[in-house]
């Protein structure tokens, strides 16, 4: 079943001044359980596409359906709520709330979902164990390495039980060992729990791990290969 469907998405930045055509008609369908990379040269529109799929930005034209909902129908606060329950985010860096510990960062989103204390505790523990941070649960982000922070971000993204996880260049600031570790972990969560991952990257080693690679060039899908 498709969790993400985009229909003829166009995005024009600065339509009044110097217009930038970031996306020029993107049709895309991503099914549950995919492990998909979005690749392409710098400026090809990867971030723009992920932001629109994640409901953080609106397309100039076209429609986005997430888990069957046309997200253009959602109001400002409705969209925030929708993101909370349906989409997990991993950003390039500084994902975490600095004053909260790793465990609290993971619990935070479940608290917003009004989950019970018991459920929060249990799931945060499980997830932090799963991402290999069982001995770092009470550390603040500052006390963690970049790779460890990204793993907490993955645990947090999973905590809300979203329909899929979006990650815009999650390994851009990591060394190669941390990159490999993070990818292993994401792949395992994808395999074991069936979590859908859509991530953008420039890194060939990351691209090699993806099962589907969508190549954007100048705001259009130039290639879409499943391996």
């Amino acid at each position: 079943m498709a969790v993400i469907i985009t229909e003829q998405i166009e995005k024009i930045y600065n339509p009044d001044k110097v217009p930038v055509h970031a996306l020029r008609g993107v049709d895309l369908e991503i099914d549950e359980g995919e492990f998909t990379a979005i690749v392409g040269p710098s400026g090809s529109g990867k971030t723009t596409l992920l932001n629109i799929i994640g409901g953080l930005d609106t397309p100039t034209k076209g429609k986005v359906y997430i888990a069957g909902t046309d997200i253009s129908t959602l109001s400002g606060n409705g969209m925030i709520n929708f993101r909370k329950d349906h989409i997990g985010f991993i950003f390039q860096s500084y994902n975490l709330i600095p004053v909260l510990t790793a465990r609290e960062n993971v619990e935070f989103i479940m608290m917003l979902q009004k989950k019970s204390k018991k459920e929060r505790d249990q799931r945060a523990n499980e997830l932090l164990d799963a991402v290999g941070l069982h001995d770092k649960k009470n550390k603040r982000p500052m006390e963690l390495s970049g790779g460890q922070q990204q793993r907490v971000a993955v645990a947090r993204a999973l905590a809300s039980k979203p329909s899929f996880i979006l990650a815009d260049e999650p390994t851009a600031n990591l060394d190669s060992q941390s990159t490999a570790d993070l990818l292993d972990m994401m792949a395992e969560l994808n395999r074991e729990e069936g979590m859908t991952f859509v991530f953008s990257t420039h890194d060939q080693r990351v691209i090699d791990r993806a099962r589907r690679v969508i190549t954007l060039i100048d705001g259009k899908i130039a290639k879409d290969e499943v391996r």
Partner: protein
Amino acid sequence: MLLTLALRNIWRNKRRTLITITAVAFAVFLASIMRSFNKGAWDNVINTSVNLFFGYAQIHANGFWDDQTIDNSMDYQEVVRSLDPSNDHILGYAPRLESFALASTGDLTQGVMIVGIEPDQEEALTGVSDKIIEGNYLDASDDGALLAKGVADKLKLGLGDTLILISQGYHGANAAGKYPVRGIFKYALPDLNKVLIYLSLKTSQHFYAADNRITSVALKIAGQRQVDKAVNSLKENLDPEVYEVMDYKELMPELMQARQLDEGGDYIVMGILYALIAFAIFGTIIMMTQERMYEFGILTAIGLGRWQLFAVTILEIITVGLLGALVGIIIAIPVVYNWSVNPLDLSMMGEEATAAFEKFGMEPLIPAAFEAPIFINQAILIFIITCILGIFPLSKILTLNPVKAMRS
């Protein structure tokens, strides 16, 4: 957890938080002390006048205060009958027959104010006997006079000497009499000290040919706070065509005006003080908001509602503001308390300060008012200021675009 988040954020930038708290505490401290002294000083001035002579309220025949002649007097028994004995705000009363006369001794003359009093009732209200420096207080059937020190000096009269009074009595009768000096008292209020003479009520009624008449009833009321209730219930019972009831504010309008003027100055100083503090807090808020835009972006992206985010932010600001106010108040309390018990002695500030106080008939001592509302008001002010300044982060958060915020 939102509360945890807010509280932890406060300690994130300890130095800035401490600077903000110190600034707020300093302003609250200064403002509390200023208000306490101002209030204390003026309460003191007013209480002095009230306790020395005026009482917190008076009853007159309607029109007496504007035209203070003996013809605007009233029947003593009738007033007393009209007083409601069940009015428990009124602890006592003192009837008076007040009018003006010319006092003389051979070749010296002086305009004086004659006040006929029931000595016991007057004593209960104003405690005249404490102020006597020579001789004795009057008794009810006394045919002698009590002179203020100023009058005695001017007329060169001593104990046992004879005072001659001339005036116009009730309904135009001639009034003249000779009275032995029984005692001399000293009032700190110079206006009174220069002109006041006490006779017993009987003697004064006789002098003015005004049997059974009085011009005013001064009321004993527990304190400033009960005055309004006491006056209102009196007004309900007394016919406004016949009687006028005036509180100390109406009896001493110049004093009230001077107080208002002085308080106005205080509020200007406070306004400036709090404007400075508002700027300090605003600076903190701007820095805090700007450096957190990225984090705000992340938080809204993952699903924190805008109002929840604002709640965290405003909670932080208000907590810091109130913490500052609390510190200021805690430091101010012992200082103000000490000065309320041991009034500030201004005589060390030189002759001028002393002279200024003597004009109001007071010792150059300022007791601070130690009252909860003064402190609470400062905290409320800070709360209001922080709430208003919260509009800035609110507008930032409501217009926040997570993508833009995260690019910063």
